[in-house]
């Protein structure tokens, strides 16, 4: 029987990991609400953001050791450029992949995002190889003790920054003109267009925003769990499951879904076997789909699907 300390530790690790899923899921929801596309290259943005930040802030061998990057810029600058490069790739993906195929079926557009994710993964593999990389923790120092569970400083950063990102995203949607326009074009694209809101611009902004969000997630988690070139796929899938748990269109639901997912995974790995970590995630997906298509959070079954409101 596990002690309460052990349980506390597993839940803390789960919340740390879940915060990342929550941010990725938020990216999924934002893009889906505005453009109707489920973007499976969401996880790659996290990988690219993290790798760019790592490369700029510490000594890294590139292209099979043929190039050494030793810029060692300060972390905030490196992180900012990491986010910027992911945003750029997000914008390019929209302009070159999604926008030209806007009249195609949603399935075709999803396939475009999958193609992009495979290409991006290959690019990361070429540049950085297969080794795991670690970003230096944001602040050095001994971990905190919380009811017998250990909370590392980076975990505090992960949780704190997740809260900051989520809150500022909501404020952005609620109070800024662009945010309102985004909400309008997701609630009723036709009416929004009549009001002079350009849906292409909205799609572009949604992709940029989601890419940036994922890159931030990748950067804050890289000191805890390292970053490897192939993390993107799993991050995408986990974010997608969190999004479904939250009812597909509900950002609050996506955040809660991500956190629940992280904790369930951590408990499954700690109490049963680490081999079952992913199995549980996908078992949850099946249960949610069978029992409640509208997600865990919304009481009104199926309504979330109908009312695409942020």
């Amino acid at each position: 029987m596990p002690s309460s300390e052990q349980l506390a530790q597993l839940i803390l690790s789960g919340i740390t990991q879940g915060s990342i899923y929550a941010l990725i899921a938020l990216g999924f929801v934002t893009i889906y609400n505005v453009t109707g596309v489920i973007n499976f290259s969401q996880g790659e943005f996290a990988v690219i953001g993290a790798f760019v930040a790592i490369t700029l802030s510490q000594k890294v061998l590139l292209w099979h050791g043929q190039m050494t990057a030793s810029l060692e810029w300060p972390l905030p600058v490196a992180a900012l450029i990491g986010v910027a490069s992911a945003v750029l790739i997000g914008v390019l993906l929209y302009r070159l992949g999604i926008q030209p195929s806007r009249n195609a079926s949603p399935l075709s557009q999803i396939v475009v995002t999958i193609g992009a994710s495979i290409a991006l993964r290959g690019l990361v593999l070429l540049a950085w190889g297969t080794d795991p990389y670690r970003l230096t923790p944001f602040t050095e120092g001994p971990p905190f003790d919380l009811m017998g569970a250990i909370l590392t400083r980076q975990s505090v950063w992960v949780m704190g920054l997740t809260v900051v990102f989520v809150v500022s995203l909501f404020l952005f949607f609620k109070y800024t003109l662009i945010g309102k326009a985004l909400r309008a074009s997701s609630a009723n694209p036709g009416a929004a267009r009549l009001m002079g809101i350009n849906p292409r611009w909205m799609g572009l902004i949604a992709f940029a925003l989601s890419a940036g969000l994922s890159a931030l997630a990748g950067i804050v988690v890289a000191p805890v769990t390292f970053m490897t070139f192939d993390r993107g796929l799993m991050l995408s899938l986990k974010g997608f499951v969190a999004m479904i748990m939250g009812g597909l269109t509900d950002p609050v639901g996506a955040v809660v879904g991500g956190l629940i997912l992280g904790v369930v995974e951590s408990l499954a790995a700690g109490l049963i076997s680490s081999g079952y970590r992913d199995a549980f995630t996908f078992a949850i997906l099946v249960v949610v789909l069978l029992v409640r298509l509208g997600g865990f959070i919304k009481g009104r079954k199926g309504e979330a699907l109908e009312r695409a409101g942020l």
Partner: protein
Amino acid sequence: MKNKLNILISALAVFGLLLAACATPTTEAPKPTAAPAQSTAVPATKAPEATKAPEPTKAPEVVKGDPYTVGAFFSSTGPASSLGQPEVDTANMMAEQFNKAGGIKGPDGKMHELVVKMYDDQSDPTKAVEAVKKIVESDKALVIVGGTSSGASVAVNETVTKAKVPFISVASSSAIVTKADGSQHEWVFKTPQQNLPVAQVQIDWLKAKGFTKIASVGVNDAFGKDSMAAMKKAAGDAKITLVYEGTFEPKTTDFSAQITAIKAAAPEAVIVHAVPAEGAPFTVQYRDLGLKFPLVHNHGIGNQAFIDTAKTASNGVLFPIGKILVIDQLAANDPQKPVIDKYIADYKAKFNKVPSSFGGHAWDAMMMVKMALEAVGPDSAKIRDYLETKIVKFIGISGIFTIDAKDHTGIGKESLVMVQIKDGKWLYVDPKDYAKVP
């Protein structure tokens, strides 16, 4: 509503496809069903430089014979690449050296060029089997060296046995050469130490410290499982209790569940069975979570990639390994010193970096191949017999080999030393000082 449902259903279909597709790249464990048949092993781009080596122009009395073909497959890419790349480099370097000297002098008195057919198994046992099939069927190699990971080395056993081509593995699991009944696989040899002697060295250290309760945690693949079983056996013999035994999946980078359980079990030391790809992240998280029990790894992490990835977290890590890492700190009269010094000098001159013990395993294998070819010529069955009976007190990089029908490894505990990592450097630990470290 209907449209959205359609999207959801399409997305789910895609999701299922992705999951099915990702089964191959994300799992490293040998699952014969996982990989599609078309994924063939790719010949390494750095094709055998041996073939282009300059012909000796002097020495007109030399008679040239037909080339001798040797098959090789290592993990140049994938999670085991930090082990495999030095092996590839070493094998290519040695073939080049042999050919520069005119080739291999066969029993017929002629000089034979050594052709190495090199393949990359991408750290995937399935691709390793495909590479070996090519090596025996189309390259018609006389003997095979390679198998960076234990999983790959075990996987090719059936193929080489059926083809009756001797195979010298550079991986450590006892299952590579030992059958379930304890006898040796007829056609398979290996140059690294078994995991059992490694565990015995770790136990020696535990005894010196007076520890009786340990945690054993390892990667869930052929190498990790063999090493954990060896530790269990050695610990049982020494009356040391395993208060925690756990595994993690290959390529995992989140170890919070295992480390939490280790903390709760409160061992006196923690033994880890992994390669740098998982061992380094584990070490970092172990330190991050503030655990203070001494951390002991096995010989899987003995290369620079471990220190480069784990950085300061590697400080204080103890592990048993071959002598090459600390040869400059060993007694000057060590019988292996001249051989190891020459290998290090050659490797440094060619690649401008220090070789690892893994490159050393490939050196031993290539040298055995050369000796066998010189003695018996191009005959796979005779090469096998030579390897089994004539490798006696052969001084290699990994140890001093004496191979016989009961032991296809030929080296044991005596070839290992305990090493401690201190400020990014390897530090030799004399058995007398075991109680003082870490």
